[in-house]
C-alpha cells in the first residue's frame, strides 16, 4: 500500500465519521425546507399563466384568425385533457417526435398562420416581457393534472429519441466535465439544500417530471421543461441548447418515459 493509498483510506474513514455526526442537522434543515414549501399551500402564481394561456388558446389569431381549439396534441383536435401526459410522441403530419412546446409552435404557425419568428420571439418570459408559449404550456399541462404519464415508445422514431436522450444524459463535457448524470444518477443527494432527483429510476424521474412546468420562486416566472433542460445545460457550462431540437426532445423523451406511470401534478411551485 502506497502512502497515497493509505491517505485515501484515511480520507474515507474520516468522511464516514463526518457524515454520521452531521446527520441530525441535515434532517432539521430538510424539514425546515419542507415547512417552507408547505407554507405556499395551493396558492401558486402559475395560475396567472394558466389564465393567460387559456385566453391565448381560445382567441382566434394569426392570418387564419382561428383559435388553437383545433390544435391536435396527439389525442385529436382540441383535446387537451391528459394530452401533456402522453407527450412527447410521434406526429404523422410533421413526421417528427414532438414535445408540447414544439407541437404548439406547429399549431401556431400551421393552424393559425402566425409567423414562426413571432411565435418564437419570446420563448421564456422575463419580467415585463411575457412568453405566450409558457402561458399556453401551463394551461395545457394543467389539463393533465391527475393523468398518468403514458409513453408507450411504440414508434421507431420515439425509440430513437429515447436512445438519443439517454446517451446525452451520460455525456460528459465542458470545462467542468459535467453530464446530466453527474448530479442526477444517485438517490438521496442534494446540491446545497436542494434535493436532486435520481432521474435514471422511475421513482426519481416521476418525482421530477410530474412537477414541470413549475413556477420558480427564485425567478418569479413559470418555467417549462424546455427551459429546465436549457438551464441545466447552461449550468453544465455547455453552449445554448436549441429550443425544440432533437436533443431537447430526446432528453424530454428519456425523462418522460422513465417517469411512465407517474401522476401529473403540474404546474407546481419550486425554488
Amino acid at each position, binding site marked *: 500500500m502506497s502512502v*497515497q493509498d493509505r491517505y485515501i483510506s484515511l480520507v474515507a474513514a474520516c468522511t464516514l465519521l463526518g457524515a454520521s455526526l452531521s446527520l441530525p442537522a441535515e434532517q432539521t*434543515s430538510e424539514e425546515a425546507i419542507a415547512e417552507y414549501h408547505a407554507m405556499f399551500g395551493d396558492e401558486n402564481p402559475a395560475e396567472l399563466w394558466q389564465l393567460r394561456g387559456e385566453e391565448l388558446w381560445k382567441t382566434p389569431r394569426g392570418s387564419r384568425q382561428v383559435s388553437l381549439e383545433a390544435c391536435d396534441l396527439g389525442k385529436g383536435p382540441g383535446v387537451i385533457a391528459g394530452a401533456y401526459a402522453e407527450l412527447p410522441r410521434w406526429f404523422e403530419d410533421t413526421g417528427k417526435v414532438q414535445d408540447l412546446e414544439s407541437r404548439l409552435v406547429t399549431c401556431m404557425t400551421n393552424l393559425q398562420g402566425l409567423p414562426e419568428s413571432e411565435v418564437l420571439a419570446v420563448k421564456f418570459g422575463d419580467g415585463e416581457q411575457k412568453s405566450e408559449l409558457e402561458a399556453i404550456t401551463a394551461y395545457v399541462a394543467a389539463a393533465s393534472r391527475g393523468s398518468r404519464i403514458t409513453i408507450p415508445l411504440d414508434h421507431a422514431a420515439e425509440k430513437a429519441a429515447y436512445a438519443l436522450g439517454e446517451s*446525452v444524459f*451520460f455525456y460528459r463535457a465542458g470545462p467542468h466535465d459535467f453530464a446530466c448524470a*453527474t448530479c442526477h444518477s444517485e438517490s438521496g443527494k442534494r*446540491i*446545497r*439544500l436542494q434535493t436532486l432527483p435520481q432521474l*435514471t429510476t422511475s421513482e426519481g424521474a416521476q418525482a421530477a417530471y410530474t412537477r414541470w412546468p413549475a413556477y420558480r420562486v427564485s425567478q418569479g416566472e413559470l418555467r417549462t421543461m424546455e427551459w429546465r433542460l436549457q438551464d441545466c445545460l447552461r449550468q453544465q457550462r455547455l453552449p*445554448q441548447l436549441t429550443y425544440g431540437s432533437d436533443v431537447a426532445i430526446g432528453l424530454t423523451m428519456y425523462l418522460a418515459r422513465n417517469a411512465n406511470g407517474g401522476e401529473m401534478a403540474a404546474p407546481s411551485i419550486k425554488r
Partner: protein
Amino acid sequence: MNSSFRVTALLLCMGPLVSVLAEPVPDLTATLKAAFTDKRQATLDRLDQDETQKLCTQLRDQVPTSELSQKITRMNLATVKPPADGKYLGDWKAGEVVASTGTGLQSSDDPAKPNGGNCYACHELAPTEMAYGTLGPSLKHYGKLRGQDPAVLAYAWSMVYNSNSYAPCSNMPRFGHRGILTEQQMKDVMAYLFDAASPVNQ
C-alpha cells in the same frame, strides 16, 4: 474496452429501468453540436471530449476494473502541477469566497469576474454553513482531522487540481487541469481546508 463491462455499468446505472434501447448513438458529438449554438464564452468546442471524458461517458462513470481505474488516474495525475513556490496554503478567507461562489464559465457569467469553486454545492465544510450539498464527502474539520503532513497536503492539492488523479470519473471538476481556478485560488481553498483558523476546522 470489454463490452461486458459496459453492460455491467449500464445495469448499475439504470436501476429498475433496464432498457434494451441503449444502442450507442454513432456520432454523438456531431449530433450535439447540431443541436447547440455558441452563447458568449460557452462555445460549441466545449462539446468536444478529452480522453477522460470519453472514457467516463462510455463507462457511465462506473469504472469496473483496476486497470481502467489506473489508466484514468495515471493519465490525470500526470497533469497535476504543484504550486510554483512549493507552498500549498494561501489565505483561507479568500478560499471561503471561492468555496461559496458558484458562478464562472456559464454562458450567463461575466468572464471578467473570477470563477468560483462552488465547493459548498457538494461538500459540507464549515459546520456553521448549513446550506451544503452531499454529492461529495463531508470535508468538515478537514485539516483538524488530518494535520499538515506534506503527503496529506500533496494529496489534497491533487484532488483539487485534478480529481481524477485519485478518483476516476469523479463528479468533481478538475479545477486546475481544466483552468477553472487559478493556482492562487486553489491555494486559498487549500488554506480554507487546512488552516487552523479556518471555519472549516472550528
